């Protein structure tokens, strides 16, 4: 648990929830289709290198598989995070045992049920077997009220089908709607939608979130988090989220702009605050793409530049940062922050990592960035 102290001496206790966290395995032994498996992890590695401070870029082998111990130390020990939510991305077409596999996640969550939050996934092309598996996972892993409340829905997942390949699916298909009904029955009320470069049919825009819009309108009692705020279609995302109040901005990937590209980050935040307001924005460092330590510290030190405050009529105050960093996600997942704080005081992870309350002093010279030429 950390406290942020501003130059005027004011202190804010923070409770940080990262909604999009991974322990992946992209080591060579796990490559099923080598070109694709390698292409996937190398692309992640480029994202990391493109936006991280240099000292946070690991060697390739560590990056491909870092494991539980390192993840716990980085995220909870050094990284200021209080709770992290798994969003499995299976990619069974690329990796033997999946890129991040639900069984492994179940194991981690069973060990650390007040720190790590289990999320599963489904794919409408899995049919009845997929629904049965989901039911089983709820029975097995709903070990806290907030566990097994979310699924990651990666619509660009490739799958072998009828001897050929299917390179994606849509969230507004009748098959997907049956899964959403199953989710409703099982109390899985958070749908974490994630778009990738392919979708069926390939002539359509793979990043169009029209299908999320349709699903969110049809299931108004459920919450839909759109990962990386719809990028590369931030415009689509904002229009849709303005209409559907059950759509949330998932900041995975987007957060990482804060360090090397603060002005771009500023424009993004100004737009999110203008179109969605402060209550539907969720923090993530997207570990291990980026290390939460620098992401959180930079974000706390970040201020919206005056020209954007004036142009958009919004501000990013410490209260709003606090919401984004944890309170908003806690509401979505039904996490009782005070209850968790009590549990964390002496839990196994606190003992294992010798966790202690810390203070981050917000600097006088916050990051802002100069206006862009464009």
């Amino acid at each position, binding site marked *: 648990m950390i406290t942020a102290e501003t130059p005027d001496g004011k202190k804010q206790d923070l409770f940080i929830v990262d909604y999009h966290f991974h322990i992946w395995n992209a080591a*060579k032994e796990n490559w099923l289709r080598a070109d694709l498996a390698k*292409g996937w992890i190398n692309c992640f590695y480029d994202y990391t290198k493109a936006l991280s401070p240099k000292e946070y*870029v690991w060697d390739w082998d560590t990056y491909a598989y870092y494991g539980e111990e390192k993840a716990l130390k980085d995220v909870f020990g050094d990284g200021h995070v209080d709770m992290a939510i798994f969003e499995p991305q299976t990619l069974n077409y690329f990796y033997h045992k999946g890129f991040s596999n639900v069984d492994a996640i179940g194991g981690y969550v069973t060990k650390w049920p007040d720190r790590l939050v289990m999320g599963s996934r489904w794919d409408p092309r899995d049919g009845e077997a997929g629904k049965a598996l989901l039911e089983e996972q709820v029975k097995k892993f709903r070990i806290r009220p907030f566990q097994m409340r979310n699924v990651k829905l990666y619509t660009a997942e490739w799958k072998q089908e009828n001897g050929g390949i299917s390179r994606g699916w849509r969230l507004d298909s009748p098959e997907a709607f049956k899964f959403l009904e199953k989710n409703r029955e099982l109390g899985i009320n958070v749908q974490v939608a994630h778009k990738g470069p392919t979708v*069926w*049919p390939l002539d*359509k825009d793979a990043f169009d979130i029209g299908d999320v819009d349709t699903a969110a309108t049809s299931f108004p009692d459920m919450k839909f988090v759109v990962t990386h705020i719809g990028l*590369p*279609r*931030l415009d689509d995302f904002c229009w849709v989220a303005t209409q559907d109040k059950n759509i949330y901005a998932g900041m995975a990937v987007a957060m990482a702009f804060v360090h090397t590209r603060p002005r771009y980050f500023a*424009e993004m935040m100004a737009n999110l605050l203008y179109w969605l307001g402060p209550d539907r924005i969720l923090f993530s460092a997207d570990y291990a793409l980026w290390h939460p330590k620098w992401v959180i510290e930079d974000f706390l030190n970040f201020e919206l530049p005056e020209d954007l405050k004036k142009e958009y009529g919004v501000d990013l105050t410490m209260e709003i940062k606090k919401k984004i960093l944890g309170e908003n996600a806690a509401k979505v997942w039904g996490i009782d922050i005070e209850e968790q704080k009590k549990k964390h005081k002496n839990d196994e992870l606190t003992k294992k990592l010798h966790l202690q309350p810390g203070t981050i002093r917000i600097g006088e010279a916050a990051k802002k960035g100069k206006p862009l030429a464009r």
Partner: protein
Amino acid sequence: MAEDAQAELKENVLRALSAVTDPELDEPITDLGFVKELTVSDDGRVSLDLVTSTFWCSPNFVYMMLEEARDVVSRLAGINEVRVHLDGHHDSERINKAINSGTSFADCYGAEANGNLAELNRMIRTRALRSRLHSMATALSKHGFSPEQLLDLSQQDVTSEGDSIVVTSPRGTFAISDLEDVRRVSRYLRFRERIKPSDGPLVVWDLDGNPPKRDGFRSALEEARLARANFSLNAELCRALLEARIGSNQLDPSKSRPQPQP
């Protein structure tokens, strides 16, 4: 062919390529660093090596970009053959084969696609138009033009004179000389020129040349501002990714070296 003529031909090819944009970023492929290698032989055969910022760029937009690159170069005088080669993309092999044999997107992807890319192209170009319109409106607002006053200007009221842009309006004549503002206005004008009718109002809202509604133009401009922010974010991310991608030895993990841990 003399060496000079060959160099000139290569320059013409590069100039033609600088008019090809990545549709999702609305920036020239030559500025983005996507042109990896270009050779022009003395008998007018062009070989063009392209790279995208990631292994996973959407095949449909990549296809559009490659088709356009092939076509603008093919149309040049003195060019007899164009071979395009995309490297390091998950669908490189299939796309290269189709582009070089003149196969359409629909035929290239068969049952995986529901047709060609006209609709997708219109969607993304409409956003590019609006993004550029917002940039122009920003530049003109510095000279006191309100959004509504922009709607009263015609295409001929805004002209290029030397390094400046001159705006003739009922409020008077203004010269825009700030480099960035000139660039903002020029980018819009270049796009506007391709839209018919070319002698109509300065401000158009779609690719058919229709003007926006006067009521609600300010909120339309807010949408355009969002489109601009989106293009600019994506372009910046792609530049950063391409730099990370090219400046590394990651394609062979066995060559990776331990680095200091954070």
